[in-house]
């Protein structure tokens, strides 16, 4: 029984392996939350920018706009991150 997603600890020092499992678990969950936040933001902003009137499917120009928008959003995140950290 493991509440940590089935990590198998075959280490000879089980105490050490479990501590690292916990740390790994925490990091993974926080990374996942961060990724989900990013996806939600991109979805919201890029839908707004690229799909002014929703049709019955995504046209190729809408898809191209979404790709450009995504790239731009990631670049913006990076720029904002650097500016904030520099303060």
């Amino acid at each position, binding site marked *: 029984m493991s509440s940590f997603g089935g990590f198998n600890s075959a280490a000879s020092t089980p*105490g050490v392996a*479990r*501590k690292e499992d*916990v*740390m790994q678990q*925490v*990091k993974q969950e*926080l990374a996942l*939350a*961060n990724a989900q*936040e*990013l996806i939600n*933001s991109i979805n*919201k*902003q*890029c839908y707004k*920018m*690229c799909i002014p009137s929703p049709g019955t499917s995504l046209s190729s120009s809408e898809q191209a*706009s*979404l*790709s*450009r*928008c995504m*790239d*731009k*959003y990631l*670049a*913006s*995140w990076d*720029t*904002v*991150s650097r*500016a*904030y950290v520099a*303060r």
Partner: protein
Amino acid sequence: MEAFDQATQQELKKFVEQETQKAQMQQTIHEFTGRCWESCITQAKSNQLDSKETACLQNCVNRFVDTSVFIVKRLQNIQQ
């Protein structure tokens, strides 16, 4: 399941605090990015930021932080 020993518990506690701080910082950056995107980026004609957009994003972050500092200082003055 055996409990972790005292030393390990302390180490894990410190680790979780550090990771939480990092996560809070990232959350702040998400908020800033959303806000500053709305102020600065009006279209997706290219997949790159031009120099105006970059400058706008940087200004946005700095002015928002300045605003925060300004408000706190003024509140402190009012209270004195």
